[in-house]
């Protein structure tokens, strides 16, 4: 029991952190306007702090902890493609990419407070990060729900009477 409890809290912390990061990014993106600049600044700094804390916890976390930093690997990708066993390697690739691109956007935004010439790069990286976030959402949706939906659709199509398929 103690073992199960002690292994649950890192995952709970990770999920809470993910919620704060996603919510903070959403607020920062929606308030990226001169009229709501203070809100944008608040949310942006929150995202930056969340990324820094994640990196700090990730470095300090033990070997098998969920809080350990993602370590994408080409070798593991090739092994997975050959065997189709184990956790999908794209999880690690997406996690690392998102930490990098969202972290860079937040960092550039913070630096732009002192150097206005960084505003354009900040905006460009933030817009680019949307694509990575969209791909991440599409991937996890497929991995956790899409395959079930496709299996159900396939089952319905295969069980439907032939006349209805013409």
């Amino acid at each position: 029991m103690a073992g199960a409890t002690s292994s649950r809290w890192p995952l709970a912390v990770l999920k809470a952190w993910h919620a704060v990061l996603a919510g903070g990014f959403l607020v920062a993106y929606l308030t990226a306007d001169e009229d709501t600049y203070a809100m944008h600044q608040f949310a942006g700094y929150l995202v930056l702090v969340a990324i820094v804390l994640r990196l700090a916890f990730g470095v300090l976390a033990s070997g098998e902890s969920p809080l350990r930093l993602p370590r994408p690997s080409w070798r593991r990708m090739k092994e997975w493609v050959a065997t189709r066993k184990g956790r999908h390697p794209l999880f690690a690739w997406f996690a690392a990419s998102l930490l990098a691109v969202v972290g860079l956007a937040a960092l550039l935004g913070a630096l732009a407070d002192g150097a206005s010439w960084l505003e354009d790069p900040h905006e460009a990286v933030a817009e680019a990060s949307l694509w990575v976030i969209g791909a991440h959402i599409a991937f996890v949706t497929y991995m956790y729900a899409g395959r079930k939906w496709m299996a159900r659709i396939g089952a319905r199509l295969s069980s439907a009477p032939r006349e209805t398929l013409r």
Partner: protein
Amino acid sequence: MLKQMLVQGLIAALVVGGAAAVYAQARENGYLSAPAQTQTGNPDKERSDGDRHARGDRDRRVHDHGTEARAASPGRDSDDD
């Protein structure tokens, strides 16, 4: 799990948005001091109310002094909004 994470993210967005709104309101009312850069009069930073519009104007960002740019442009009304 997907639904749970989606709901958690939306709740977090609401909480963060609410906190951000409180922060913005407090700053507007003067309860919180402005960032240090604006108090030192950094020409790269224009955070005062009168210069807020200049921040969104890409052309004006090229110039170091938004007020000078406005003065140099004849017929420009900074209170259009």
